[in-house]
Structure formats: C-alpha cells, structure tokens
C-alpha cells in the first residue's frame, strides 16, 4: 500500500455529496466531479458509498493496461493519472476495463477523465479536495497509522476480488475487523469458484 492514500469508510458516509461538490471545485478538473456516490441498499436504508479512483497497483491499473494510446500514466508513488490530453483518443477502453467503474469519457472533447488523487494538491502536502472536506471522515487521506491513531482498532483492506481476479489497490477500504483477512468483494459476492475458496 502507498504511504499516504485515501481510505474509504462507507460506515461513516452520510451521502451528503460534499465530496462530489469539492471534486468539482478542485483545480485539476474544475467544474467536473470525478467521484460518484452509490446507494447500496436503496428503498431500505440511506446507506451510501463514495467511489474514487482506486489507483490499482497489482495488476498495474487495468485502465492503463488496455489503453491503446498509452495515455494513462502511473506515477512512481502509484497515482494512476488521468489520460494525457495529447495522447488520449477517447476510445473508452479504460471505461470498460476498470473494475470499479471510475473513468469517464467526455465524448465532445474525445477525452478520458478520472480522479488523479488531486496531484496538484498532494504535491504540496495537502489532502485531495474530497478527503479534505468530507464532513464525516468517510474519505480520509493519510497513512494507515494516522488513520488508526484517529480511529482506534480500525481495520482496512486493499485487495478486491472480481471472480478469479484479485486486484490490489492504492486506495483502501475500511472493513469490519473480522473481514480483514479476505479481499473485499468488488461488485459480485463471489466466494467460491469451481470449488475453490477465492477469499483464501
């Protein structure tokens, strides 16, 4: 896991969309939000969950892997950048490859857009805009030690499993303590494939 990163704690999210508004205000995508909010139990509860780019580490960002124009670059500290405007051809391969549904395409501009972990802010020691304003701390920016100092006993996971594929990410999720040994199911509740426990 990266040193300083975003930790997502859905248990704290109040669905206020301050993160969405803040993302629109941040200088690298001014006017457009790169976060979306999911409602996980609609009709039953107000539970909500923000999704930012997870900055996949292993395998190296699927969006970057499939980009035919080599437009998506990854920094040394693991930030998966948005497409380089001089290279992106707007083909939307990345949209289809991303297991978290993060990249978006501006069809008019033929350009991919995604969260780049506010590198314009993190480069100066500031937290990304979403994690700065999130009123509840559902988005937290820092090291895992800083998180645990603030929230005693908190457990995090940075591995997601999609069918047979495991993805290790730079952004981590807060999970219940008893679940931390297992990867977080990403999208589908896959537990077993052909008799093999993929949770390990």
């Amino acid at each position: 896991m990266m040193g300083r990163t975003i930790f997502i704690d859905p248990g704290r999210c109040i669905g206020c969309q301050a993160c969405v508004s803040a993302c629109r205000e941040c200088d690298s995508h001014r006017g457009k939000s790169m976060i979306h909010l999911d409602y996980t139990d609609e009709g039953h509860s107000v539970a909500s969950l923000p999704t930012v780019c997870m900055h996949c580490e292993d395998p190296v960002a699927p969006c970057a892997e499939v980009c035919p124009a080599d437009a998506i670059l990854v920094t040394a500290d693991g930030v998966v950048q948005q497409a380089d405007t001089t290279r992106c051809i707007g083909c939307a391969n990345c949209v289809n490859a991303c297991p978290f549904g993060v990249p978006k395409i501006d069809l008019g501009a033929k350009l991919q857009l995604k969260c780049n972990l506010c590198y314009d802010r993190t480069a100066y020691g500031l937290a990304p805009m979403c994690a700065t304003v999130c009123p509840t701390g559902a988005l937290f920016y820092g090291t895992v030690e800083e998180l645990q100092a603030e929230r005693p006993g908190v457990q995090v996971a940075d591995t997601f499993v999609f069918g047979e594929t495991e993805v290790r990410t730079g952004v981590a999720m807060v999970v219940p303590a008893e679940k931390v040994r297992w990867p977080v199911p990403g999208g589908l509740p896959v537990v077993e494939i052909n008799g093999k426990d993929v949770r390990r």
Partner: protein
Amino acid sequence: MTAEPRAAADRRTFIPLDPSLAPPGTRAFRDAGGIPADQWHADQNGETLVPTHCCFCGVQCGMYLRVDRGGKVFGVEPRNHDINRMRLCPKGINAYQQVNHPDRLTAPLMRCSRDEEFREVSWEEALDFTVAEVKRIQQTYGNDAFGLLGGASLFSEKTYLVGKFARVALKSRHVDYNGRLCMVSAAGANKLAFGIDRAGNPFSDILLTDCLLIAGSNVGECFPVMTQYVWGARDRGASLIVVDPRETAIARTADIHVALKPGTDSAFFTSVLNVVIAEGLTDENFLAAHTTGWEEVKAKAAEYPPSRSAKICGIPAEQIVQVARTFARAPKAMAWHARGIEHHSQGVENCLSVISLCAATGHIGKPGAGYGTLTGQGNGQGGREHGQKSDLLPGGRSIMNEEHRRQICEIWGIEESELPPAGTSMMEMVWQMQRREIRGLIGICNNPFVSLPNYRVVKEGYDATEFHAQFDFFLSETAANAHVVFPVTTWAEDEGVMANAEARVVKHNKAQDPPPGVRTDTWVMCELARRLGAGDKFDFPDSRAVFDELRIASAGTVNDYYGITYERLEETGGIAWPCPSTDHPGTPRLFEDGRTYHPDGRIHLQVVEWHPPMDPYDDEHPMSLTTGRTVAHFLSGNQTRRLGALVEQTPRPWAEIHPSHGFRNGEPVRIVTRRGSEVFPALVTEAIRPDTVFVPYHWPVPTAANALTIDALDPRSKIPEYKVCACRIEHADRIDEVPAPPVAPGHVAYPETQVSRTDPLPPTSPQGRGTSERS
C-alpha cells in the same frame, strides 16, 4: 497537462512532482493547514485567500474565499479552523457562487402598487418612497401599524440594528425575526431552566462523552460537519441514541434508534425519566445540590410509565427502558437536539423534558456531559441576543423589565416612555397583517413565503399590507411581493460577527467589494433612520462602529460580549460568550462551578405534561406529515436553489413514504392536509414510519411543504408546529413543475456527453433523490 515527453512503453512512467508542471490555476500553499491569517493577502499567484466562515448553518465552518486579481470571489478553499478542521458540506463548498451570481439585485426595485411591474430606481427615490410610506401609515394608523421582520442570517451587528431601528427610528413595538422559526423553543426552555439561552457545551465535548443522545436532529443533512464529532465519539466507544421518526444517516448506525411518532417527544422523555427514577439511576446528590422543582417533576414522571408512553409514541416499551439505562449509566452523557423536537406546539416542553433527564442523571456542566441545541441558521444563536426578538433588548435583556428598559434607554439616549413595549411574534404579525392591524412592513433577510407555515395565510397577510419593502440580494418569493426591494450585500461583502450553535462568536471578513449599486444592510438602515429623523442615533459608518456599541450594550448582562473585539476574534478563531472583559478567555462550557444563571444558581426543573399535536387525526387525515431539510439546500432555498451543483443534487422536493402504502417509487402522490394539497414524487423507503410522511420544505408553491403545514404555535416560544400535522396520501396524475432556477456562471454541469458505466442509477433512497431526478 504536463509538458514533459515520456517514454511510452513503461506505464509506470514517473511524472515529477514539480510545481511548474501542475495544471494552470494551481496554487502553492505555505502549509497543509492553510495560510496563517496574517498572511492571507499575499498568495504567490496573485490570488488572495480571505479567511471567513460559511454563511449558512449554525456550525459556522471556517473557510477561505478565493479572490482573484480583480478582487472578485471565485472559489473556496477549506480552512483549518477549530470548528470544522477543513471540512465543509456541499452548501459550504458552493456558497461562494452566490456572490457574483447573475441573479444578484444591483439596483433598488420599486413600484407603487402590486399590479405594476418593478422598475429600477435610484437609491434616493427608493428611500424617499419608503420613508414617505412609513410616515403615511404611521400618521394614519399609529406607530405600531408598521412592522419590521429581521433575519438570523444577518451578522449580529445588523440584528442589533434591526432591534434598535424598530424601536428608535420606527418607534414601533412590532419587530421580530425568522429565528422565531428556528430554535426559540430551546431558547425558552434553557432560559426557564438555566437562566441562560445557549448550549451548555462546546462541540468538542462530544468527543469526550460516553453516550450521545441526538433528538430530532438530522445531523448528517442539516449540520453535516457536526457528524465528524458524532463519529469521533463513536470511535472512542460512545454509544449513540437517536430519536427521530426517520432512519437518517446518523440513526442508521445508532445503538438505539427510537423511531417515535411525530409530536410525542415529551411523553417519551418523561417516560425515560420514569425508568431512570424507578431503577434508582438518578444522581440524588446533584439534584439536591443544584436543582429546584425535582419533587414535582418526579411526581409527574410517575404518570408516564413505559407502557403508557410506548402507546403514545408508537414504539416498544423496552426501547424506553434501554434508553434510560444507556443514558443514565454512562459515566458522561450528552443530549443534543434540534428542530425535530422544537418545531412543535409543545416545543418548550419537549426541550424541558430533555433538560430534566440530563439534570436527573447529573449529566450537566462537565467535559463530555451536558446539553446543546443545533441552530439552523448561521446566526440563529447570535441573531436574538441583541434585541431583534420582539420581547428582547440588547444583551438578552427583557423588554418587560423596568431596570433593563432603563439601562438600554440610557445607552440609546432616549426617554423610557419612548421605548415601545413588547410586540408579537413573526407568525402573529402575519395574522395581524391579515387583520390589517399591521399595514406596512419592512422585511430584512427573510423569505416567509416559503418558510412560514400555512402559505395561504401568509400570502393573504402580505397581500393585505399597504406597503412592503424587502432587503435582499436575490429576488426571493417574498421580495417579489414587495413595493420596494433594496439590493444589499452578501456575507462576503461586509464584515461582522455571528455566534454559532456553541455560542462561539466568530468573525466573517470582507472578501470583495459589493457590486456597484449594492449597499450594506447597515447603510440602508442608517439612511432610513436618518430620513425618519433619528439620524443622530444611527451614526454608524461601518460594522465595527455598530459592534462597539453592541459590546457596551451587552456589558454586564448574561449575554456579555464586552470582552470580545474584532482583533481578538481574528487572533483566536472565536470566543464563546459570556466574555465580560478583554482579558477574559470566554466561556465555552457552562455551569462548571455548578451554578446556573438564575439568582439562586440552581437549575429550575419544570413539570411537563404531554398533549397531542394541534392538528387532530381523523379518518380523512390519519397520517402525520413532518417537514425538514435536505443537505443540498438551506432554509427557504432563496440562496441555494440558484446554485447549479446544489440544484443538480436535489432539484425538487419529494414525499418520503413507507412501502406499506403501495405507492411506486417516483409516482406522483398528493399530500392532503386541512390547509390544502400539493403533489410530490413519492420516494418509497423503509427508512420512515408507516404512519408518517416527510416532505422537505425549501421550495415555493406549487411544491411547497408549507402550503400544507399548520400555523399553530407553541404558547411560550411562539414557534410554529412544522414537525407534525394530520394528512392523507392520494394518487395524483402529475407533478406541477417548479421552473428551474438560473444557475451561477462558472458552474459547469456534468458534461451531457459523458459515458460511464457508473452513471448514477435512478435513486430510491432518500439520499439518492438528487441524482434521481436528473433527466
């Protein structure tokens, strides 16, 4: 965009973190906590960061406004202030967009009758016309035929001026303010019990508590930044009790969520007290040393066993027992409440029943133990402290008290006989307008056409006035009814103080000059006063001059501001009153010495008797309608309904209904009460009681919750009973559209062309409504 050519093959190509490669518009910061106050004028890119606070709710989050080289506000930057530690909610993030919004009024508007169109006129003409009308009405019908309605979003300096202007320049008893719709029930209860009208503890005490009770407060949506304190308490193991008919984001994670029927709060809390007594969990030493009236309260509590209250409240009796044990056994417990228990015809009683519970268990006046009320408006607390409320004079003095009257007359330099007696409350003034007892009105920073209950009565009242002037920076629904509209400044164009929900006084700074043609409320009031012949009493060049008089006027009272100066506020990030001298640190936590502000130093416990809500249920109206706020909008929506991101988030109201009624999600439903009916899209969710329907109130007719609510008042606080009235739900054909408001420039909506597999799904959860309604 970065300029460096990169090796194409290696996906891990390193992009150096060099400031020169950052995108255009990027700013460097001196430190992660933002720029120190003394250096905020000197950002390296020519951009200025002005430290100030959010203009909206009673949390008063610190923020920087970003000001460009031309001196215009163009953005926001989080600020590491004690209250919010960089955090902001969506309203706070978007607030700056109203400063240079194209809807801003920039010239006075005037018309001689409501049949005419407005025309832009000079300040001279608008002021002259207003003064002529004031004089005509007062000469014909008496001084009290002209009224003044202020607002709790104004800086305290301006609320002080509103009170002084009404009594000294207008010489009318009729002045009140929209904080009357906010937390006056809590104010009344606190005054009765403690002799002081404010929360007992600072927000930071929440982090120290072992049990947090939140009653009638949708913290996550109405005071989002407060949530960090709630979650912080949870991190340290505190239990959470939430009393609310809806399963809000906070209630969702509570240890105990008491989903009681609206309008039954005091029956619930008195029953909790019953169990506390029955189980021997009272703190008898505390009661003996610090309270009066305990025996009477105890006797009354005996009449509310859990079996009885469980029936009244529509909850399991065991929950009452559970709450009593959790709250009373906690080493330190705290109760915070908001409009959910205050907006009732028994609002004061509801708050008193919470106070009795805190006192009986000894949870008062200690770090992590106490009570508080969350103010809805930015200056809901400060807005009434200095004489804007009909029965109060500056410093929280009573207008009925001889001694207090004498003191203020001395400061104002008028004869005591000239000071009018107490007037009536905001809703009562509207009734008087309906009866033509009040013939003329000036409204400052309020929008009763959306915010008062029973819209038809309000409209009739305003329509019946012979003259109506309104101060505002946007043409609100109420301003559209006026004869004269004065274009005034936003919070970013003037300086002044506000007191947040903790009674912490914070200073707002000026970030830009007002647009040409716009004047400060202070200037307009002083100018009107001068033309009314009271110029010598209103010689205030700016806010600071008003604040200095306010400090003196509050000196020696319970609401003592004397020791608070602009300079100290800038240095400290806020001072809680009372603060009697310039070397006094302020008073974040009350009653630490065990003494209240009553002369005997005790908590005066009050007997509370539950009674049913004012609008009775019958076969035609079997359900409860309850109203409230949504996170994207603020009060009457006059400000937030114009800001693109917030409109996109929550474009229109809805009716939240339990699935047991058989409606489909999104289907139009008609809510019918004895006052009328309105159609809303249904939001079907299990997160609400089956016998209750919820509608947010930020919109005007034809989708106004307040066209349905009852104008019944609490007899003591005169707060309207917004939180419960009888209703039924019917199928409807279609929803009347409210015209879409204009959107601020600079706001770029999500590109239409965007493709993403994760575009928001149609929403069914209450929190999802914003995205839902996007077509």
